[in-house]
């Protein structure tokens, strides 16, 4: 029994650890913090493995834990909402560089989104979750996920156009 659980958990970890780590990195913009957050997330998942009610996918359940882990972590570190709003771009050392390539400019544009939109973008593009999984993770309807993601992408595009026209 214990052996089966260990095998199942190990397999689940191998399938999802890359996504969880990427999601954590997008939030913290630090590789070491992402490792700590991912470790904490899996520890919580391990402890609460039996509490999964079977609704939706196990992955969506894991990312709900990951999201709560992030929230607790930022709270513990004393980061207020405004710091989070600033996003990853302002924390990055390369942010002050005058010329940016497309990827870096886009990364910064994502960092400047609102927390709501940024979270959707991270869950979709870093964690590679489907609309349905994002909806379960955030506990919102699928339609809300679609509309938020659409607005987020529009905002990113507008920022990129500003960058291209302005510099």
């Amino acid at each position, binding site marked *: 029994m214990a052996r089966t659980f260990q095998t199942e958990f190990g397999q689940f970890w191998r399938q999802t650890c*890359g996504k969880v*780590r*990427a999601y954590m*990195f*997008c939030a913290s913009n630090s*590789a*070491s913090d*992402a*490792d700590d957050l991912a470790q904490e997330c899996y520890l919580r998942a391990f402890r609460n493995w039996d509490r999964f009610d079977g609704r939706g996918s196990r992955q969506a359940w894991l990312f709900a834990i990951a999201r709560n882990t992030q929230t607790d972590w930022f709270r513990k570190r004393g980061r207020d909402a405004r710091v989070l709003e600033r996003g990853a771009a302002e924390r990055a050392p390369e942010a002050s560089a005058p010329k940016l390539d*497309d*990827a*870096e400019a*886009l*990364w910064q544009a*994502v960092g400047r989104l609102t927390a709501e939109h940024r979270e959707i*973008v*991270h869950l*979709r*593009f*870093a964690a590679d979750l*489907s*609309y349905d999984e994002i909806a379960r993770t955030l506990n919102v309807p699928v339609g809300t996920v*679609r*509309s938020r*993601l*659409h607005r987020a*992408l*529009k905002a*990113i*595009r507008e920022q*990129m156009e500003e960058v291209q026209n302005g510099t």
Partner: protein
Amino acid sequence: MERETIERLAMDLALGELSEDAVTLFETYLAEHIEARQWAEPIMQTCIRTRQSIMQKTQAAARLTQYEPVRLFPADWSALARWAAVVAIAAFLGVAIGRRSVPSPTQRPETVVVRTAPRQAGPEGWQRILSDSEQGFWQSKAIAMLQSQPREIPGSFESQPSLWDRYRQFRKERSREETH
């Protein structure tokens, strides 16, 4: 269709969230409506570029934390340590097996009686020895000769006279000569 609907469908298409039938229908629609294609393309491009940017960032971070395994010993030392471990295990097994095995029966060494002086025997004793023994004439003769000439048995632990003893003996003899 409205612009927002087109854009949302384009986003769904780029993210792989549309069914096969929906994909076919939407692509047909875009092929027929140039304006719709112009609205769809930017949002699809944004999807692709956002994905690429995030993947690039997260993969670069993943490379940063690929830790090298820590080597406790350099290459030569590790080989030496392995050999030392093998030798230690072999020694341990040898001792363990040796302790458990039954000791082999060994013969007691015969007690050697060392005599510093020949055994003294009276005439009766010699008579008895000679009469009891079934040895030949020459052997009996040799024994009799040994009895008559006491000598030191080789390998005995009798101490040799020291230099001091010899000096004392020499002094005694000299004083005796002087008195005579």
